[in-house]
């Protein structure tokens, strides 16, 4: 209805001529009919005409009234305003350019960040009824949250809980399988998923089908689902792949389906295999390999579901005290799991761009105020000639809206480019970024802020410009006196707020930079320079005790070590600071009182080759490192953290640790050495107790080189292939890349906030420059008088700069208070620095103060150069 009206008005606009003619025709028809009637009644033609016109009334007025209703006068005026506005904008290209660019920055930044917020926080997950999907994790006391779920627990919950309509599971760490066949052998990341995972989520295969329930049973024909990207990349989008067999670790699997491109549960998976849980796997409670997703029954709340899961967990603790004691369970909305810990960073960034937009709008308000002052005379004249105030406001608003529209358009294009950049160059370990796109709701948001900023920027200047105190205006316009006090106050207020906003942003960015610097200053526990890591997949040993794998690995390592440029080489199952999960195990330390098996400590267990510690640069603190003779011996090396925790004032060498507290036979191993702590889970992680085993399961080769490690990569690969051509080598990366990747999300949000803070700084500097130089222009006469009366250059400088700095200091003071309150919201993003870090606050205030001083100095210098003769004549 509303839309149709507008459309008709727009039509009316183009057809205004036709409408005029139609009305004239219609009215003429009326007159003619009346004249004919009158003549029939016996009047003379002249008399008939006069009588008809008399009865009709004022023809012109009626035609205009009719036109007002029919012709869309409203839009015609709008069109007029628009044309007039465009002329004004074109006549002042510099003003237009500055205003449009300012708004483009503000609107573009907001659109780009909003598209991320929209994709990650607002848009529902691409599954059926996503709000009822929950993620279930188990946790282990005292404080290890979000561990996987054991097969035994999953099976019981799935069969016996009442809260869930369905429950599905998948392996939440990758099983690496060797894909052979056409082309180079390649390591793929595989997960095992229960057949109902797909139907529960409402996901259908892009081609083929998903798993059938019977395929979930062990001993079925091996089938596989492929990720869309694997199909595109490895199989070059081959159309007839369904039904064919691919080889993974030398076993044939029939491809039954290809999943949709946006299916990312889990996001690292290349292939999905059926869970195929065997009887044992369905009851065991020692290992916790599953990520469990469930759909709540209608009407069941998350709290109810949690409570039910907890009852089951308590029952399991009683029934299986040995394995289940100490374990807990919790459920979270799936959406929350998808976002992960991105939410605080996103909200901070969103707040930051909102600030940038506010500053941009404040700048445009300033510009428009200056413009309005320059047009005061024109406006006053129009008011005097009878234009209504509403009419003037409408015209000025049309202008500011056109500015916003132009700025918004430029901003939108900027945002499209930025979003592309965000998606393609964002950190690889933020896979959620891949789902960011500019969709209709982003467009709607942009349009919304365009209109809002247009109105916000235009309303104040239009309101104040159209104030109908004609006398003042005409007087002010006529003489170069200082402008109205009210408008000057408004302008000052704007500058003060701009500086305050910019300060808050800059402090936020400063805190993130400091956090990042702190993070980079953290010693990882090894020497990360000149290190190359690569995944080398040895065939899995049939028997862990025959050391075949370890022997083969040492053989390869020996050849690599002999290469020129290679200093040392070793191996480990998972390299430090990589995003991969290692193995966690509960253990019992000798001589330690165990109050309760529920509170057994958990250690990170890593498998290493003989020369691993020397190669990567982890220092030996006590005891000795591994030799070949340790391979089959129950011996281990621990880290300092573990040693200090359990043997604080004793020599841990020779003490024993049982790493299989739940097995029939305790598995005691003696400590032969203590090495330094390593930040396995990232530089910001707290150190964990670590246990190193010698030998058999090294997946990553670590090589220390004397030159750029990547230069040696090809030679090392050749050397590996000279031992066995079929060994796939993957993930060739320097350790410095691993480190950079591990801090990439922080780096990313820091860079973005820094960018926005820089924009804020620039915009507010432009703002204060604009205001002060306008003031100088306004006061040229007064300054001229002062100079004529003997004021020195320095006096004038002091006068102008003093005015600017007073505003700056007020803004800084307000900004410092605001920053103190607002930066607390980002404390979860900080590392090693308090949200109220005085040094950062002071440094940022000084930077902003100096920039603002510069911005004031330029117009002040101009003021000091005023020639009194010229200034006084300049009236």
């Amino acid at each position, binding site marked *: 209805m509303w839309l149709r009206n507008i459309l008709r008005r727009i039509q009316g606009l183009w057809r205004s001529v036709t409408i005029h003619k139609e009305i004239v025709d219609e009215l003429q028809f009326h007159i003619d009919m009346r004249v004919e009637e009158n003549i029939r009644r016996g009047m003379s033609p002249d008399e008939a005409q006069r009588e008809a016109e008399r009865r009709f009334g004022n023809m012109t007025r009626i035609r205009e009234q009719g036109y007002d209703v*029919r012709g869309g006068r409203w839009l015609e005026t709008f069109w007029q305003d628009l044309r007039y506005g465009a002329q004004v904008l074109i006549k002042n290209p510099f003003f237009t350019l500055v205003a449009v660019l300012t708004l483009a920055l503000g609107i573009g930044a907001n659109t780009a960040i909003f598209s991320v917020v929209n994709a990650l926080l607002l848009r529902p997950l691409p599954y059926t009824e996503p709000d009822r999907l929950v993620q279930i994790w188990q946790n282990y006391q005292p404080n290890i949250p979000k561990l996987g779920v054991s097969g035994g627990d999953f099976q019981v919950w799935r069969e016996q809980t009442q809260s869930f309509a369905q429950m599905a599971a998948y392996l939440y760490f990758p099983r690496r399988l060797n894909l052979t066949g056409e082309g180079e052998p390649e390591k793929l990341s595989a997960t095992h998923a229960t057949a109902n995972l797909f139907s529960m989520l409402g996901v259908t295969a892009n081609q083929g089908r998903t798993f059938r329930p019977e395929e979930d049973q062990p001993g079925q024909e091996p089938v596989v689902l492929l990720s869309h990207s694997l199909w595109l990349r490895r199989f070059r989008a081959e159309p007839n792949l369904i039904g064919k067999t691919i080889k993974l670790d030398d076993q044939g699997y029939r491809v039954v389906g290809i999943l949709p491109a946006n299916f990312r549960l889990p996001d690292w998976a290349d292939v999905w295999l059926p869970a195929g849980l065997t009887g044992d796997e369905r009851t065991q409670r020692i290992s916790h390999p599953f990520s469990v997703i469930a759909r709540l029954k209608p009407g069941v709340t998350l709290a109810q579901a949690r409570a039910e899961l907890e009852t089951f967990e308590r029952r399991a603790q009683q029934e299986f005290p040995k394995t289940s004691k100490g374990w807990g369970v919790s459920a979270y909305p799936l959406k929350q799991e998808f976002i992960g810990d991105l939410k605080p960073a996103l909200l901070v960034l969103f707040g930051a761009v909102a600030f940038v937009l506010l500053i941009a709008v404040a700048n445009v308000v300033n510009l428009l105020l200056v413009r309005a002052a320059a047009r005061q005379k024109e406006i006053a004249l129009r008011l005097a000639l009878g234009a209504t105030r509403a009419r003037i406001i409408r015209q000025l608003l049309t202008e500011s809206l056109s500015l916003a529209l132009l700025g918004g358009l430029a901003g939108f294009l900027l945002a499209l480019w930025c979003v592309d950049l965000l998606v393609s160059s964002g950190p690889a370990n933020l896979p959620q970024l891949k789902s960011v796109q500019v969709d209709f709701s982003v467009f709607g948001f942009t349009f919304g802020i365009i209109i809002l900023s247009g109105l916000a920027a235009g309303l104040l200047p239009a309101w104040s410009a159209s104030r109908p105190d004609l006398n003042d205006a005409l007087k002010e316009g006529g003489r170069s006196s200082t402008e109205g006090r009210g408008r000057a106050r408004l302008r000052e207020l704007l500058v003060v707020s701009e500086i305050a906003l910019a300060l808050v942003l800059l402090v936020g960015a400063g805190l993130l930079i400091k956090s990042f610097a702190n993070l980079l200053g953290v010693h990882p526990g090894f020497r990360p320079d000149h290190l190359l890591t690569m995944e080398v997949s040895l065939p899995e040993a049939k028997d862990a005790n025959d050391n075949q794998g370890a022997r083969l690995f040492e053989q390869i390592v020996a050849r690599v070590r002999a290469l020129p440029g290679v200093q040392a080489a070793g191996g480990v199952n998972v390299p430090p600071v990589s995003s991969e999960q290692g193995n966690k195990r509960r253990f019992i330390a000798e001589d330690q009182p165990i109050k309760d098996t529920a509170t057994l400590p958990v250690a990170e267990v890593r498998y290493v080759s003989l020369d691993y510690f020397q190669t990567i640069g982890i220092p030996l603190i006590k005891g000795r490192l591994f030799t070949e003779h340790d391979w089959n011996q129950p011996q281990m090396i621990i880290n300092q953290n573990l040693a200090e925790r359990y043997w604080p004032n004793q020599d841990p060498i020779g003490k024993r640790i049982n790493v299989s507290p739940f097995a029939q036979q305790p598995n005691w191993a003696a400590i032969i050495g203590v090495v330094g702590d390593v930040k396995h889970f990232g530089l910001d992680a707290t150190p964990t107790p670590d246990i190193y085993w010698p030998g058999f399961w090294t997946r990553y080769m670590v090589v220390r080189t004397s030159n750029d490690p990547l230069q040696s990569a090809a030679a090392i690969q050749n050397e590996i292939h000279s031992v066995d051509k079929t060994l796939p080598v993957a993930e060739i990366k320097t350790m410095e890349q691993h480190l950079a990747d591990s801090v990439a999300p922080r780096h990313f949000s820091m860079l973005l906030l820094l960018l926005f803070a820089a924009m804020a700084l620039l915009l507010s500097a432009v703002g204060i420059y604009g205001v002060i130089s306008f003031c100088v222009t306004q006061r040229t006469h007064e300054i001229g008088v002062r100079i004529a009366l003997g004021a020195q250059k320095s006096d004038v400088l002091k006068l102008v700069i003093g005015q600017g700095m007073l505003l700056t200091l007020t803004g800084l003071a307000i900004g410092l208070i605001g920053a103190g309150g607002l930066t607390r919201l980002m404390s979860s993003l900080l590392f090693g620095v308090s949200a109220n870090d005085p040094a950062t606050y002071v440094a940022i205030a000084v930077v902003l103060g100096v920039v603002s001083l510069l911005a004031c100095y330029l117009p002040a210098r101009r003021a000091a150069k005023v020639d009194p003769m010229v200034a006084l004549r300049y009236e």
Partner: protein
Amino acid sequence: MTGKQKADLLQGTLDLLILKALSLGPMHGYGVGQRIMQMAEETLKIEEGSLYPALYRLEEKEWIKSEWGISENNRRARFYKLTPAGRKQLNIEEENWQRFVLAIGKVLRTA
């Protein structure tokens, strides 16, 4: 025509009269005016031109629709016709009017 006292049109009643006139069937502006005069038995004073802005307003509200057609004397004329929404509006306004007349009548009788 001359013997009778003519009443000025009350503000806002023209719309009601136009809707009523068109409820008898589609008609051009001139015809609408004629019909109103006939129905009022020439007791109303209407400035004929004022019909047109009123017609356009009613069309804007979508109570009536218009299209060009041929008049009874074979001339091109714009014909108006009541829409279903207009018919509903007519009912409402008729009721309002009856209530209004009743109320005014009561007041006048008690005086």
